[in-house]
């Protein structure tokens, strides 16, 4: 793709109507919680509006014009999202979100293939969404869980990987961690998992928003991600699955749309990906997801990655000024190895109090355990505050963050 001209974060901000509105206290919105969910550009909002105003109809059934238009837009969106991660449209299943995508694998593939004593390998820093479904699968089947350990910086320790992979049926791992933002070295892990014969599942919730993702090059079997973290609406996500796996594995949910023929006693199933999409899909949001990935591709994932590194580097520099007042940043602290996420604490101030004071300055950060309770426990952190950056954040946002943190330090007399 040819880029005529690189855009600036300021220009990008103008595409996101939420930034034109001040917060309740009249301050500009400084949104540093994109790891939780991203803001939406006008084009995505318009796509929803247009669908409901102009061609709202159920898909794959109607013979009339607007139904045909809806079906076409829905399948075109699938093709765009598939191209975005370099897979075939037939390998991309719509889900509600990453969590549902991982559950689909754990139930449909897991129930059919995992046996008592099998090993499911995870890491010590997974989101609850990439932990609890495997715990339940292990309980259903008698499989055991193993974890790739982390060091005191939250970096995976790969020395014992081959031993951990021995007898392993499934490896499921985040592409980018959500609490520390660590980009995992999948290129070093997946080939070894393949050699050990394990099914490779990637939790891409924080991958697709920030990194160019090529599932063919990664050579994973499944890749799960959420639209809402990458400019699309909430309620739509996707699961990439290798075609041969999607063909051989049984369906997850069942009912309408996923069938070919139904009799009173027996049913034959539709082909993938529809075999895994029971009931009426989230049509409008899927169509808008297609618009969101076009927006990201237009800006360029390369630009986004460089921009996030720039902002992260600037934030790390500026935050060192607060070190004498007790500010500690966790994780690898190297912009090359993190996906626009900084987790920190300020002296003895609880992260929730930090977040409340930042909120008075219009600064939105997340505080708590970030859905990684085992990681927090292991690291001995009660709670952390987390700032996450995306394509629309600027150096000024970081400056506001720093001055709001100074205010918190002042209030708490640090």
């Amino acid at each position: 793709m040819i880029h005529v001209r690189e855009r600036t974060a300021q220009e990008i901000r103008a595409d996101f109507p939420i930034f034109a509105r001040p917060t309740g206290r009249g301050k500009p919105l400084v949104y540093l919680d994109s790891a939780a969910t991203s803001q939406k550009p006008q084009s995505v909002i318009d796509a929803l509006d247009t669908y409901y105003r102009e061609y709202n109809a159920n898909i794959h059934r109607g013979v009339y014009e607007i139904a045909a238009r809806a079906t076409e837009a829905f399948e075109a969106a699938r093709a765009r999202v598939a191209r975005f991660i370099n897979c075939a449209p037939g390998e991309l299943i719509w889900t509600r979100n990453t969590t549902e995508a991982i559950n689909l694998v754990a139930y449909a593939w897991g129930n059919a293939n995992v046996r008592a004593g099998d090993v499911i390998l995870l890491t010590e820093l997974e989101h609850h969404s990439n932990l609890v479904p495997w715990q339940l699968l292990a309980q259903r089947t008698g499989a055991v869980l193993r974890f790739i350990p982390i060091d005191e910086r939250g970096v995976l320790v790969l020395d014992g990987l081959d031993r951990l992979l021995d007898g392993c049926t499934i490896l499921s791992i985040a592409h980018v961690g959500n609490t520390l933002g660590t980009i995992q070295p999948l290129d070093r892990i997946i080939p070894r998992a393949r050699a050990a014969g394990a099914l490779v599942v990637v939790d891409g919730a924080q991958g697709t928003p920030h990194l160019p993702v090529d599932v063919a090059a990664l050579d994973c079997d499944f890749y799960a991600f959420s639209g809402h973290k990458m400019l699309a609406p909430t309620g739509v996500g996707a699961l990439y699955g290798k075609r041969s796996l999607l063909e051989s594995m049984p369906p997850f949910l069942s009912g309408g749309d996923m069938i070919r023929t139904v009799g009173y006693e027996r049913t034959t199933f539709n082909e993938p990906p529809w075999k895994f999409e029971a009931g009426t899909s989230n049509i409008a949001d899927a169509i808008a997801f297609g618009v969101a990935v076009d927006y990201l591709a237009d800006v360029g994932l390369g630009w986004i990655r460089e921009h996030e590194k720039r902002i992260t580097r600037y934030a790390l520099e500026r935050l060192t000024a607060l070190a004498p007042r007790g500010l500690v940043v966790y994780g690898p602290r190297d912009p090359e190895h993190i996906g626009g996420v900084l987790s920190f604490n300020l002296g003895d101030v609880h992260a929730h109090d930090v977040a409340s004071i930042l909120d008075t300055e219009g600064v939105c950060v997340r505080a708590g355990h970030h859905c990684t309770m085992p990681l927090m426990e292991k690291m001995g952190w009660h709670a952390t505050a987390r700032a996450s950056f995306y394509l629309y954040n600027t150096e000024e946002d970081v400056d506001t963050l720093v001055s709001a943190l100074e205010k918190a330090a002042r209030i708490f007399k640090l």
Partner: protein
Amino acid sequence: MEDFYRDYILDHYRNPRNFGHLENATVSAEELNPLCGDVIRMDLQVDDAGIVREVRFSGKGCAISQASASMLTESVIGMPLEAVAKLSKDVVLENVGIGISPTRMKCAMLGLRVLKTAAIGSLAAWPDEE
């Protein structure tokens, strides 16, 4: 919200009153704030007449939850256990003496919920939702 962090609140946060455990507790309870995972435990020692003689709280959390719990322990010493079971959110709001934003209300009410749970003997409702 910034007004919340008054000197006396910070004092209760950094120097919590009646902090720790009671070996000879008559009733105890422990609960978590699902929003943030903060946990508070309350141990109460009640005499034969049903009067709360001693209270200790323990846990880790934000200034709002810790200061509210600390102030609450001072409020209930000498109170009949039956009255503790019936306390409303007002006791917390009066103690802190400052508005609490809706997003932090659960933090402020956690200590009271735990205290009422101990007094009632089963999980109490959130005081702000009663």
